[in-house]
Structures are given as structure tokens and as C-alpha cells.
């Protein structure tokens, strides 16, 4: 692998955002994902190569560590922050179509629930994996999901809930989505949920781990 791409992958994996970021301490003063991405583009490396052969490699490595229990949510978040810094340089190429997005993904925390940390983590991981994520925020009613789905008819939908009282909203929303668009995939996540609950409400899957979910979505494309 090209040396810059290798360093960039490491910067993502270790969460080195830019030269000014104090974390991780052993890389203090060194350039991070921000500068390395710019450098790679300046050297003429194709944006698609930067994304696929470096950024996603870095995210994949930290994601695998997370799955293995060797890294935790803070490590995923700091890596996602570095990824976002790199993606800012690639944004024009996404907009021009030079880099093709994997697809649209609508995400939100269901009505009555204001917990959005878990949903935000999934958003960051999916954005970093090349999805166009439409984040509806928290306390999202079924109508809002439907309205957005009409705007992005090819999108998949992800719903989050952290309360046993609000997870019931998922059933109503899933039914409404399937009535509007039977082929739309609906996924659910959140601490009180389970695969059994997902099956019961007619959703297409429950994922407790953002990295596994990202891998699963990639397998659908």
C-alpha cells in the first residue's frame, strides 16, 4: 500500500484527527487524517482509492477490534471523528458523482424517546462507510419517516429506542413503512430490543453493534 494511504488508515484507526488534536498522545504533533487526506489528493491519488483503500481500511480495523471486544465505543467515536475530517475533503467528489455513495439510509430515534447517542454512533459509522445518511434526529413520529421515505424511495430505514415504552412505537412505524413501501428494509436497534422483538414487529433485523450492521448493509449492496 502507498505510504500516505497506509498512514491515513492508521490515523483513522487510532483516531488522529489533525495535527492539533492531542489524542492519541503518542502521535501528538504529527499530522492526522485531515492533513493526510489533503496530501493524498494533492499527490493525485484518486478519491475512490483514498476512500476504499485507506479510510475504510482504517474504520474496518477499529470496527473489527470493537467486535472482538478489544476496542470500545470511545475508540469508535474518535475514529469516526477522524473519518469525518477526511470525508470533508472528499465531499466535492461525492457531490460530483466521482465517488459513488452506497445508497441512502434514513435514521431516527422513535417518537417519545430523546436518547440519540446510539443513533448518532450508527450515523457516524454508516457515513464513514460511504452511505448518505439522512438523520431525522430524536422523537421522530411515523409520519416523518414516511415523508422522508417518499423523498428517498430507495432508502433503507433504521430506528432506535432506549425505553421499553418507546420501543413499541417501532411496530407502528414499521407497519406504516411496509404499507407504503413493502420492499423497504427496516432495521431496529437499542438496548432493550432483541432479534425476537424485531421479528415480532416485522422489521428486517436487529443489530446491537454498529460495525456488524455496517458490514451487513455492505453485503446487501
Amino acid at each position, binding site marked *: 500500500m502507498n505510504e500516505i494511504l497506509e498512514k491515513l488508515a492508521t490515523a483513522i484507526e487510532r483516531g488522529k484527527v489533525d495535527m492539533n488534536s492531542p489524542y492519541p498522545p503518542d502521535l501528538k504533533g504529527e499530522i492526522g487524517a485531515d492533513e493526510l487526506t489533503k496530501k493524498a489528493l494533492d499527490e493525485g491519488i484518486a478519491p475512490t482509492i483514498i476512500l476504499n483503500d485507506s479510510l475504510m481500511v482504517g474504520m474496518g480495523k477499529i470496527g473489527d477490534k470493537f467486535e472482538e471486544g478489544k476496542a*470500545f465505543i470511545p475508540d469508535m467515536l474518535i475514529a469516526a471523528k477522524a473519518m469525518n475530517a477526511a470525508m470533508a475533503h472528499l465531499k466535492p467528489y461525492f457531490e460530483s458523482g466521482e465517488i459513488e455513495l452506497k445508497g441512502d439510509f434514513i435514521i431516527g430515534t422513535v417518537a417519545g424517546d430523546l436518547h440519540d447517542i446510539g443513533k448518532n454512533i450508527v450515523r457516524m459509522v454508516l457515513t464513514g462507510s460511504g452511505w448518505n445518511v439522512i438523520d431525522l434526529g430524536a422523537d421522530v413520529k411515523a409520519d416523518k419517516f414516511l415523508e422522508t421515505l417518499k423523498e428517498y424511495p430507495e432508502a433503507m430505514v433504521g430506528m432506535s429506542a432506549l425505553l421499553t415504552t*418507546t420501543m413499541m412505537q417501532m411496530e407502528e412505524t414499521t407497519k406504516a413503512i411496509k404499507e407504503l413501501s413493502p420492499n423497504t428494509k427496516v432495521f431496529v436497534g437499542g438496548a432493550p430490543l432483541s432479534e425476537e422483538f424485531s421479528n415480532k414487529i416485522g422489521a428486517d433485523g436487529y443489530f446491537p453493534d454498529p460495525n456488524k450492521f455496517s458490514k451487513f448493509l455492505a453485503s446487501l449492496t
Partner: protein
Amino acid sequence: MLYQSFHFKPTFDELEINLNNVIKSMGYTDGNIPDGYNEILNELLETAKNLVRPQCGFVIIPQNSSAVSNGIVTIDGIEFETDRIVASPLKKMTGSVIFLGTVGQEFDRWSKETFDNGDPLAGYIIDILGSEIAEAIADWLARRIGYYVSEKRMKISNRYSPGYCGWSVAEQQKLFNFFPENFCEVTLMESSLMKPHKSVSGIIGIGPDMEWIDYPCDFCRVEHCYKNRKN
């Protein structure tokens, strides 16, 4: 019915914040946090000191109107369908208090803004820190209640909250009926979520034979629980 109520505003320094709990909740159950995270955590704790507005209080339920029968906890005629994890240790109570504590609204804003403004790691740590501070406020209040009842030669149980120990969070609606309006400036949404977000409500049993026991996390079916100390 209007119950006798007590309201407090403890200072931040009076709270016993255990950063080790925060570190464990971040996933580092062995207590070993990566280099650099400690500095972030300590910086956030310093900022938190200026943003937290602790408020807490409790209402006293008259003696002999709290009882447990067949796994149902009855407080002044209101039945709470708790799990046996809550009901069993309250069997010997002769009275009870319903309590509420909060870190204040400002904290919610800080957490959300930090996350949304591009620092998800800090936003995540703030969220966990908020939960720990809310628990510390509830602990401070429980100690206060303990002193109060000890003057009457009574003891207190552990504190139990809807949403934990098998007790449905939906029952928080019944609990809030005992508080005066806008008690501690905490409101309850239809979904039983409290605003401010980082708030704790619950019940403490009172009686001459009450005692504090270890939370029986080994028997609990809830896998993802803030209070879970199995790890």
C-alpha cells in the same frame, strides 16, 4: 393528597462522584482507560462543575400506608407492579419516601451541543458523566433520608427506580403523581422519559428492620443496565 415534601440543592462538592464507574460505563471494565482519555474526562468533569444544577427532594408517605403483597408494592393505595427484585427487600417496610433528583437542564444542552458540534467522544463521555452525577445526587439524597429517619429510629432500604431491577419504566407515571407540581423542575413525558434527561426518581422503603443489600444483578434479566455491576 398533598404529601409533606422536602427540597434540596446540594453543591457539586457535596456529591461523591466515582469516576471509576464512568470509566467502566465507557466499556473499560478493567478500569484501564487508554492514555489521553483521562485528561479528557478530568477536563469535562471540571466543566461539569459549572453546569450542573443539582436539585433533589422527597415526599413522605404516611406510616402504615406502604405495603408489599404478592409482589405488588402498594403506596397509599397506588399499586406498583414491580419485579420480586424490588418487592422482596421492601416486604418489611412500614413507611416509604418517593424521591426525585436531577442534574438540571443545562447539562442536557451541553451533551447534545458537544456531540452535534463535532466532538462525539466528548459528547458521549458527558452523557455517561451525567448519569453518574445523577446517581451521585440520588445517593446524596438517600443518605439525607437515612439521617432523617434515623432520628425516628428507623432505617432505609436501597433506592429503587422504575426502569431498573425489572420494574417497568412506564410505572414512573404513577410515581410522579406523588410529587407537587414541577417538583425539582423535572417533568415527565408521555413515554415516561424525564426532562431533564439526567434525572433519577424512585422509592425507598422505611422501617425498623430495613437494611441496605447488594443489588442482585445476578438475577436480573436486563443485559444493558447502568447499575449492572456484574462486570
